[in-house]
């Protein structure tokens, strides 16, 4: 497939919290979203996972309007990891198998491999999620989303609760998934270093508006707007 093919396209998308957002995500691309607290970053991810509906504008996935794709299928293909882990009562294994189980594909779900992917030992399988630390819970949540084999991954500050070493592992993992599985990643982060390190493309959102977007290396070097320049300085 063409690397430049757009996998997600947002056209003039608005909600009561977002105004006229337009951008493109490309296949095998990592895009980072930055912006002040309350800017609407999480809200944007909700729209792409179709947990919320835009009041105007259109979103396309692989050229198809997402309104024309069965909702559950879309949500599996555009997987999402939330700002909080939101694990279900039960063991790590039960959580990881949740998605595949819904579709009766539990046999295809290699829990050991998924735990391995997020740097958790296999002994964690039978651990109750309530006994896990915040960072461990977040990693189980990431594994749970991976279990659905998404082709786009939406991450909402997925590494903000993790230490430097685990964060590095997750970052390596994302890069590996992009290279090997051709996954596109859209990640919200408060960590500007991470946004610059991981992003090929960066979106800067403030007060519900997409004020700046472009190749990460370019806009971090030469911000076009005062807003983004100010934000980088803080």
């Amino acid at each position, binding site marked *: 497939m063409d690397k430049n093919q757009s996998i997600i396209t947002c056209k003039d998308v608005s909600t009561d919290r977002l105004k006229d957002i337009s951008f493109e995500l490309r296949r095998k691309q990592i895009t980072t979203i930055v912006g002040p607290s309350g800017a609407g970053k999480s809200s944007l991810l909700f729209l792409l996972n*179709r*947990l919320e509906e835009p009041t105007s504008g259109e979103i396309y996935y692989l050229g198809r309007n997402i309104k024309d794709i069965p*909702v*559950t299928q879309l949500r599996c293909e555009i997987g999402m990891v939330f700002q909080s882990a939101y694990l279900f*009562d039960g063991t790590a294994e039960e959580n990881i198998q949740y*998605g595949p189980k819904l579709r009766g594909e539990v046999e295809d779900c290699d829990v050991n491999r998924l735990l391995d992917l997020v740097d958790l030992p296999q002994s964690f399988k039978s651990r109750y999620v309530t006994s896990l630390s915040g960072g461990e819970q977040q990693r189980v949540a990431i594994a*749970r989303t991976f279990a659905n084999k998404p082709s786009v991954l939406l991450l909402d500050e997925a590494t903000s609760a993790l230490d430097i070493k685990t964060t590095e592992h997750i970052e390596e993992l994302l890069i590996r998934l992009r290279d090997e599985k051709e996954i596109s990643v859209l990640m919200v982060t408060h960590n500007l270093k991470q946004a610059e390190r991981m992003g090929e493309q960066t979106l800067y959102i403030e007060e519900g508006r997409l004020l700046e977007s472009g190749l990460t290396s370019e806009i971090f070097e030469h911000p076009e707007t005062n807003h983004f320049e100010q934000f980088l300085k803080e």
Partner: protein
Amino acid sequence: MEGNEISNLSLLFIIVFVFIPVSLSYWFSLDLSKTIIWSSIRGVAQLFIIGYVLTFLFDLPSWQGIGLWVTVMVIVAAINASRKGRNIPYVFPVVLMVISLTEVFILSLWLLFGYIPFSAEKVIPISGMVIGNSMIAIGLALERLQHQFSEEKGRILAALSLGATPNQASLQIIRKTLKAALIPNIDGLKTIGLVQLPGMMTGLILGGVSPLDAVRYQIVISLSIFVSVAVCAMMVTLLLYRFYFNDKMQLIDLNS
């Protein structure tokens, strides 16, 4: 009935006893005096009025008396129970329908198997028990449902985002809601007669009916109540949880 009657004077004494908790509340500044006095007066007045209403109803032809009063009870119960789920769309019509259907169903069973004759003296009091208990269970279920949906919002979103349908995403919530709504009745059934004699049985025994005959009535009543409570809570929960989602399988924030 061979039971002795309570004179006006002795009735007055029991009311005087209400001043014990009132003075306690006053001494310990519990700020409950007004509520206690008000609810006692209200309770007494309500009961007297009901006494007259029942006398009036029992004098009417069965059809009219039963029809009139059961309708009133069902509507009052539906209004009361649905208040607990104010934010849920269609809560009143759904609750009204569920309580009515259950009452009609239970009443038909009673008449069909000849547990009671079709007379206002029998049908109205036991319908009252069934409807009253259903009202409480529905209220609990609605309260629980709302609470769960705001408490568990994140997990429901997570489930939806993993490809769950609204049905699959609310499974846990529905279970917890029903457990909460039914547990008081299940516990009550387990200890029935051991801790507290059920109100109706107490009444029958005081009225001179032999305990073994009273027990038979109580079995019919208790199980009828249990069945209707369970059916009501389940139907209401299963009919209403869907309103927390739209047709795009998105969670609607009804609590805000």
